[in-house]
């Protein structure tokens, strides 16, 4: 409203209609209604329904019963741990590989445009399509990956059939699909670093490793923050790749919270499914909020 009064003070003779702010709050309305009804309200309602036994038509309030059940079932707790492993692994690998590719693809390497396109394209491809393709490629005996390994005399593992490996294999495919995004984010970050810094450092007689550690890495920090946060958010709520590759199997060894939510929903345990959803909210909030405050507070001064 300050704007409107300023304008009025400057031109006291204009009629009242045109003094109104040109930035009306009702512009929020359509977006706010859709967001409020279909996102915000269900999110708030989930806090209540997570404490009920629920059939969508009627509910019985059971307090923290669903949460107690959630943390007592080994496979549900396993889902929680797997979510953490999956998110950390994919996020870590995306940062390391994304930075590596970013540095490589901003250097004067051959066929730079080809390499950028090839690394980035999987980002746009359907996750389910990627999942199906890699399920076939990762087949323990007839998959292309193990057949190629056999050619050089290595006996490949059962990528998706070995209980200890299934989650990691899916995470690797996730990295394969998502590293292109991390790479283009790093490329944007690295390109924005002024060239003079590298020139000055070169004149001072530094080698390329020193320039990487002392210029590129600290000054690409905004890119690192973006990649870490984006891939953690994505990793914590990841569902489609896991579902299309293993359905949480073998057993429950590659179940994550998002797939637990879906399984409980399918089984008709709506209250328990919603409790899983609340656990996921809390997990995301507990990790992302402090992390983003921490990462954004330590901006490097240029």
């Amino acid at each position, binding site marked *: 409203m300050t704007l409107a009064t300023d304008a009025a003070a400057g031109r006291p003779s204009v009629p009242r209609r045109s003094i109104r702010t040109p*930035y009306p709050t009702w512009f929020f309305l359509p977006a706010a209604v859709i967001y409020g009804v279909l996102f915000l309200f269900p999110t708030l309602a989930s806090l209540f*329904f997570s404490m009920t036994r629920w059939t969508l038509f009627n509910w019985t309030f059971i307090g923290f019963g669903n949460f107690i059940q959630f943390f007592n079932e080994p496979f549900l707790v396993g889902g929680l741990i797997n979510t953490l492993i999956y998110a950390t692994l994919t996020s870590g690998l995306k940062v390391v590989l994304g930075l590596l590719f970013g540095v490589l693809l901003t250097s004067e390497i051959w066929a730079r445009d080809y390499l950028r396109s090839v690394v980035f394209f999987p980002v746009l491809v359907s996750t389910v399509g990627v999942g199906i393709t890699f399920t076939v490629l990762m087949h323990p005996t007839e998959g292309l990956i193990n057949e190629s390994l056999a050619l050089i005399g290595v006996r490949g593992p059962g990528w998706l059939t070995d209980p200890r490996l299934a989650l990691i294999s899916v995470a690797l495919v996730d990295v394969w699909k998502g590293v292109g995004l991390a790479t283009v984010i790093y490329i944007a970050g690295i390109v924005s670093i002024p060239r003079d810094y590298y020139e000055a450092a070169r004149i001072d007689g530094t080698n390329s490793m020193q320039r990487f550690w002392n210029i590129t890495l600290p000054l690409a920090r905004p890119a690192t923050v973006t990649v870490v946060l984006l891939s953690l958010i994505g990793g914590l709520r990841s569902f489609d790749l896991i579902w299309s590759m293993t359905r949480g199997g073998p057993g429950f060894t590659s179940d994550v919270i998002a797939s637990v939510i879906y399984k409980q929903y399918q089984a008709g345990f709506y209250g328990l499914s919603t409790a899983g959803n609340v656990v996921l909210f809390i997990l995301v909030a507990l990790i992302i909020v402090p992390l983003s405050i921490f990462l954004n507070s330590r901006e490097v001064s240029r």
Partner: protein
Amino acid sequence: MSPQRQYISGVLAILVSTVVFVIPFIFILLTALKDKKEASLRTFSWPTSFHIWDNLVQVIKARDYMLLTAFVNSTILTVASVALMVVFGAMVGFVLQRRPSIWTSIAGFFVLVGLIMPPAVVPTIWVLQSLGLFKTLHGMILIEVAYGLSFSILLFRAFVATIPRELDEAATIDGAGSLQLFFRIILPLLKPVVVTVIVVQSVAIFNDFTNPLYYLPGKQNVTVQLTLYNFQSMFDTSYNLLFTNVLLITIPPLIVFLFFNRQIVAGMTAGAVKG
């Protein structure tokens, strides 16, 4: 780098990236070309005979032309939700940037919440059901708008900051109301970021699997990603058909990639360079 090292590292990079990133796509293509028997071997080999046409016809005819229904549904879903998202998102981004107040900071907070928080699935189904929107394309469109708004608003807000305020003032003095100002002056100037939002969100919605799985069950409502999921079990032994389907749904993103690569990268890297 010395020219020789540059040469070696270049060749090595091309080789490794081709093996890691291109071969899976060639595998999809080769398998889609084969007949059922040859495809079932799942080898990386040149097809002895080409069956892409038969495979295409079979995949399209499967389950009463389900794939065609799916392409129609996915197209409607994508076009409608992106259109709403652009208009509503740009309106919010405009006012958010232009008018800082306590309300705009609250709105900004909700934008971030929408960006970070996963949706509460079953309560959303409950809400949709009470509104009569569950299992309808309309409901699905609104859901995609609700989930995609946050990201669009952030892009729009950042871009509005580059449009000088003097322009608004000039238009207002000339007698433009807020609607005229927004639709006739601001929105046309937002064109570059509108293109970015359209491209990025179209790819995201076209590829969306999880949300239609929850909110849009039923044979009539099937979307492209769900056909693939349904065919996964149906074509368990017919790898040629499964991969023909994979190939078909990879083509739209490929076209987008060829024409709008720059806009996609611009949209997706928006947060990378601050200050």
